[in-house]
């Protein structure tokens, strides 16, 4: 055996090891969700040789809370991500294709807003939301998450748009395209992988967000993160059912990520492998 295949084998082994280590908690949660409560807490734990059951999923879905939270999550994450793209695409267009001397500073300033710990502005935002009647509303949460994710989206799209040759957009302008046509019919198709991965990123961030959701949305607008948090206190001892609820919460995002993974890989590595 020469050195090259052996190195390759070692690298493959390491990659698998690392992937398994990272995915282990998730896989364990998945296994636990199919166990009975008794088997879930059994020691030593059983790996695959237990009685597989769907009872936990039935239990988690039983009271309708899950579906309500799922709808809220879809609306909040989808709505905030759509709003983010609607604002970030024109912003990134301006910075990438019509830069000024201050574009760099604007970019850095946008990023700097992400350094602010959310808890630092919690009290004022809570008071505003109370006065404006936005507490426990899906619109309120979606607006807040959109504002929080806008800088990241603008940055990601900016670096993606910069890979699109400006002359192609100028050609479209010469051909008579309006600004909207230029963005929709020329820029968007060329930057589609970047736009898709940006959407997926801000969607996932909004889906997973818990600080604002837990504090500003308690019942009516509560998304899945709030559902899981609420689930864990009264039923914290029911590991199997909690695992089932967790899997149900992350399943939609996993599914979307798996469906568009080709676009994502292209988008996230855009420029590196043009």
């Amino acid at each position, binding site marked *: 055996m020469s050195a090259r295949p052996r190195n390759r084998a070692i690298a493959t082994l390491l990659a698998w090891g690392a992937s398994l280590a990272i995915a282990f908690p998730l896989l364990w949660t998945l296994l636990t969700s199919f166990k009975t409560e008794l088997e879930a807490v059994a020691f030593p734990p059983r790996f695959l040789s237990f009685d597989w059951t769907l009872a936990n999923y039935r239990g988690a879905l039983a009271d309708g809370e899950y579906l309500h939270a799922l709808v809220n999550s879809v609306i909040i994450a989808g709505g905030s991500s759509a709003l983010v793209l609607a604002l970030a695409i024109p912003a990134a267009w301006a910075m990438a294709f019509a830069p000024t*001397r201050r574009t760099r500073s604007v970019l850095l300033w946008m990023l700097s807003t992400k350094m602010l710990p959310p808890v630092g502005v919690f009290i004022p935002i809570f008071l505003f939301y109370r006065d404006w009647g936005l507490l426990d509303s899906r619109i309120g949460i979606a607006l807040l998450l959109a504002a929080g994710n806008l800088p990241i989206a603008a940055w990601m799209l900016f670096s993606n748009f910069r890979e699109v*040759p400006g*002359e*192609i957009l*100028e*050609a*479209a*302008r*010469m*051909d*008579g*395209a309006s600004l909207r*046509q230029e963005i929709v019919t*020329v820029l968007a*198709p*060329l930057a589609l992988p970047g736009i898709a991965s940006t959407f997926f990123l801000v969607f996932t961030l909004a889906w997973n967000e818990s600080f604002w959701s837990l504090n500003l949305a308690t019942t009516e607008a509560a998304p899945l993160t709030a559902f899981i948090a609420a689930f864990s206190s009264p039923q914290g001892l029911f590991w199997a059912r909690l695992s089932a609820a967790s899997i149900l919460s992350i399943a939609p995002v996993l599914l979307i990520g798996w469906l568009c993974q080709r676009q994502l890989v292209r988008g996230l590595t855009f420029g590196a492998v043009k």
Partner: protein
Amino acid sequence: MSGIVLQGVTKRFGDHLATDAIDLVIPDGAFTVFVGPSGCGKTTLLRLIAGLEDIDSGRLLIDGVDMARTSPAARGLAMVFQSYALYPHMTVRANLGFALKLARRPAAEIAERVEGAAAMLNLTPLLDRRPAALSGGQRQRVAIGRALVREPRAFLFDEPLSNLDAELRAQMRFEIRRLQQQLGITAIYVTHDQAEAMTMADQIVVFRDGRIEQTGAPLDIYRNPANRFVAGFIGSPRMNFLTGPIAADYGCATIGVRPEHLLLDPAGAVSATVQTVEHLGSESFIHLRTRSGEPLIARGTHDLDVHPEESVRLRFATGRVHRFDAEGRAVPANNTCLETV
């Protein structure tokens, strides 16, 4: 008045003056070439005419109408970009028809005009391919076709041949010129290659540092350059410049002699040493050095028989010596130069 007229067109980028109060007439139906070294403002001026940059001050008249503030598409000009700038996600057919589609022309008319342009440029078999599946020359033809389909008032070319290899470049040079003559459409063509300017143009405009140095027909500029810069820029190999006692004999700071006007003559007044000889088959170039160390190039016949290190004597062809004053301005033959050295 038809054609394109520029009056005092000025453009600044920050502190940099890109074009400085340019006055220029682009005659209707003629092929005008903007030529000059990189950074001289020729591309900026083309982009100002196209509407891709905003004019700071001055007027731009297209067919007699001031269009300095008009949107690019409404000016009725079509541009061919250096990188071709084809839409990579569209087929050749869609690329050619894009402008017509945006203008909401009927589908039948779009198809007819696209196919007409494709036939003219031999693109018909490629209509359903995407740009990635085309060669450089084919992409170039699609870019020209895209301009052609719009039936524009004028074609604007921004160094369109610089990405092609030498053979294809010569062929496309001829094709573009033939097409322009056939259609009789005004064309403005930007290049830094003086050979392209000489071979294609009806009118050459030589730029330097945001200003026009000279405007004229190719042979006029070649024979009567307005100054030392133009004399050195137009013509290949470039004009020989001599200063010192030889120039003083002609009553000037500098004299210029083109390589074809520098003749080997045993009775000549200038003595020089041969450095190398380049034989091109049809002709040859002799690289020489004068006694005072100035480099010279002479054009010779194909059967020239001189060798490196050989000492030769040269003379200037009668009436072919260009004289320049201390500022580099050309001095007419019958004038005397005031600032003699």
